[in-house]
């Protein structure tokens, strides 16, 4: 029996490329496209996402994503131990300029850096029209967290066009399947499978750009600017807050508290600088009940410009 298992996995190992052999986990085969929106902004769009497990079986999860491009771009969810091959297509109307994906947090070799040769000294790691580029990521142990990915080349080889909408979110879940959270007044381990909704909020200039990853129906919903987030009272939901651009922000959610990851500090506000990120789990309406709980940047000038929305906690039936 043991021998048989070994035969299968050893065979698999031989078939897999060397970079994928180090750890066991799923392999994500992802194709993204960079496009121009009617508004003139740029955005990433999910073309295809298939997951191969270590038995070689494949699942197509493309249907979980929005059909249209969005800002922020598609949320890619991996687990420690997973790998990804992310192919980017340049689909930007009226442009032959290179566009890329530079990812934070996970491991990759220098040729998956998503920068131009002038920076990485290796090659132009970007997609051109009709010439996609593939990046290889390893969500190694220790890379769990919420990470940004963004363009690093379009329009300006040193800067890229994240500011124009080419950015998205990568969530690497811990292999343990658990994350700490302040739930029912205590810090405890929360099972990831119990998290019903993930709210992703990017803080850019004086606007929140949102997305919901709904784990109940396995669907991603672009929420665009300063959205109203909705959850049922008592549901476990996870927020992912990421900064972008030049401004520094203070994220605040009314009526709720959470722990600063890795500590026992209890927060209801935190600072977010460009590309800095935080994520936390809460139980919707815990101790305060249903209501339109305001969330906003607490920088006064940003509030004055409308950087806010509602977290709508709906009472249980």
């Amino acid at each position, binding site marked *: 029996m043991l021998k048989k298992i070994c035969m299968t996995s050893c065979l698999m190992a031989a078939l897999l490329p060397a970079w994928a052999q180090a750890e066991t986990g799923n392999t994500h085969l992802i194709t993204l496209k960079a496009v121009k929106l*009617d508004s*003139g*902004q740029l955005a990433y769009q999910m073309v295809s996402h298939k997951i191969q497990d270590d038995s070689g079986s494949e699942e197509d999860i493309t249907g979980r994503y929005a059909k249209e491009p969005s800002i922020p771009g598609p949320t890619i969810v991996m687990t420690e131990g997973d790998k990804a091959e992310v192919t980017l297509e340049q689909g930007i109307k009226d442009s032959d300029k290179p566009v890329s994906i530079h990812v934070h947090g996970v491991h990759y070799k220098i040729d998956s850096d998503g920068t131009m040769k002038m920076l990485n000294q290796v090659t132009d790691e970007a997609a051109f029209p009709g010439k996609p580029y593939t990046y290889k990521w390893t969500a190694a142990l220790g890379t769990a967290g919420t990470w940004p990915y963004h363009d690093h080349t379009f329009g300006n080889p040193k800067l890229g066009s994240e500011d124009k909408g080419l950015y998205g979110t990568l969530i690497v879940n811990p292999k343990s399947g658990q994350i700490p959270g302040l739930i029912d007044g205590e810090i405890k381990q929360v099972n990831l499978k119990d998290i019903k909704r993930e709210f992703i909020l990017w803080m850019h200039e004086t*606007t929140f750009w949102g997305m919901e990853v709904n784990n109940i129906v396995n669907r991603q919903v672009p929420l665009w*600017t300063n*959205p109203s987030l909705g959850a049922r009272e008592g549901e476990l939901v996870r927020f992912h807050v990421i900064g972008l651009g030049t401004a520094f922000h203070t994220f605040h959610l009314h009526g709720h508290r959470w722990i600063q990851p890795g500590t026992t500090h209890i927060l209801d506000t935190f600072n977010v600088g460009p590309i800095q990120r935080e994520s936390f789990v809460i139980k919707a309406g815990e101790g305060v009940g249903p209501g339109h709980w305001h969330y906003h940047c607490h920088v006064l000038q940003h509030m004055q*410009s409308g950087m806010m929305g509602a977290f709508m906690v709906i009472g249980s039936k």
Partner: protein
Amino acid sequence: MKTFKTPPIAGAIMMALASTAVSANPDAANVDDAILSVPGLMPSATLEMTDNPGLWFKDPTDGDALVVIKPGQAVHIKMSEETRSQHTITSLLWPVGAKDFPVDQEKPSDASITKGLDKPGLYVFTCKVHPYMFGAVVVDDPDTKGLDIGSELELVTGVKVPADSDIAKKLLRTFFVVTTPSLWRDYREAEWKVNLPDIPLNIKGQTISLSALSMTMPNKLQTPKTPGVGEVWVNTQFEMIEGKKKPGTATRIDAANWKVVNKVKGVKEEMNHPHNMWPDNTYQHIYQTQWFDKRLLTFERASGKVTSNSEVGESPSHVLTRPADDLLYVAINGGEQVVKMTGGAAPSAVKSINVGPNSSPHGHFITDDGKYMVTPNALSSSVSVVDLDSETNTIIPTGGVIPIAVWGTPDGQRAYAANLLGTPPQLLSSLTVIDIPGKKKLSDINLAADYDPVSGKITGEAYGLLPIQTPVSPDGKYVVTANTLSASITIVDVATNKVIKSLTCEPGCHGVHFGMKKGGGYYAYVGSKFANDLVVVDMDKLEVAGRVLLADGKDTSIVAYNGMGGQGILPLPLVEHGYLKETLKLSGKKQLSSDVEGWLKLLTKEQKGI
């Protein structure tokens, strides 16, 4: 599969929702149950704020400053990496009854907004700090004929005008001229042609072609018969120079022959939107603000060599010295202070003088005796009088909207503040008269008393719309104001505080200052943003004496907008006796250059103030 236990969800979302993944979960019988979030506005169009002349609100899809959306769609307005300064996103006009209007921010910042627009019509946005930055959104109902401009438009001052009124049409034409550099008035051409495309507009239900607002005028330069004394420096703020990303130069005109001597370009320093200048009392150095930046640049007048380029604050607009001690006072237009600095080749900050909360001081004035500084506070509808010895500040609320520039009488008694958007509700266009030592408002002067904004009929001399710089003549008799919308120069008689004369200026008429006329008397020099000539007004006759070209056709490093963007004007020698006196004291003591000594010799006793 470890992480994803549900079977694959293929195809359309509705299919997915009917799949086992959903039915396995009783909480998610349908999409309404599962997705409780409500998306915010999705932008259908974008305007990006930039430093590029004309395209201050740029549509990234086609590079112009106008976007068209449908009712119910949203526009996203944001700063881009192409601007180095902070701005406000402020409604200038919108269709009467538009929901949740106007849009505004209290202070300049890096803000972005997404605004849903329901009511068809024209929406124009500006920046209160740099109020010629224009961007427009047309909300067009596809079921009506022509692009919807609307029936009645509301201005930010609360004034409501019919969309077919003269003022509305003026604003519309000006919008296209300002945001289309090819429509700027180039005096190297025989004619100024404003050719607007044949786009059908729906104004009050009537279909009118935009081309009906087209016009052609002859371009006639004219050399003033009597020479001036010294030189005239003009901030040609939009001129694009090879090797520079940011626009702007300082153009030097020799008043003896009215020719361009040279242009100071600041290529290495990226001299960005040079807006206003002032000299030290030897005229060795010229200090210059960079309005779409944070820095003050100092250069040697004779050589054009830059000696300093230092950060002073957000959007520094004007710079003056105090006559007695030659210290600098730099208005920080994007903040609420005037920065006091040491003079010379490399000025450094001494102190910051706060002139009031959210004041945004722009074009200030210092009395000849150096006792008072007066600031027009663009964002707080007030004028501040600062006692410069004690540095105590008195804020005088004026009710003026965007008070942008101020100047005072030689005796230091009165100041005149130009309110770019008038004094609502009565005055569309106004100057506020301030008692400087009394630190109070005296009255408002209606600059457009003889103009009917609906019919466009002009029945007298008082025709000045959107006033900007407004200096008082050195003899204390007249206030000369550059009016950017009406492209006119109004002259107010100080004795009566009435407009006694209106002269034709240029599109974007902006900067005015006085210089010495040879043999006695004064010229007023007037620069315009969207034309490349300098208008010379004879202050003895109150007539235009000439139009002098600011373009230099021989300079091949000028890649665009040759001579355009006329804003700050610095004629040398200075006419203000308080300043001139200090320079005259240095005469004959080997502290002045030979050309300056030569100019001083040409001055009459009256001009010298002795």
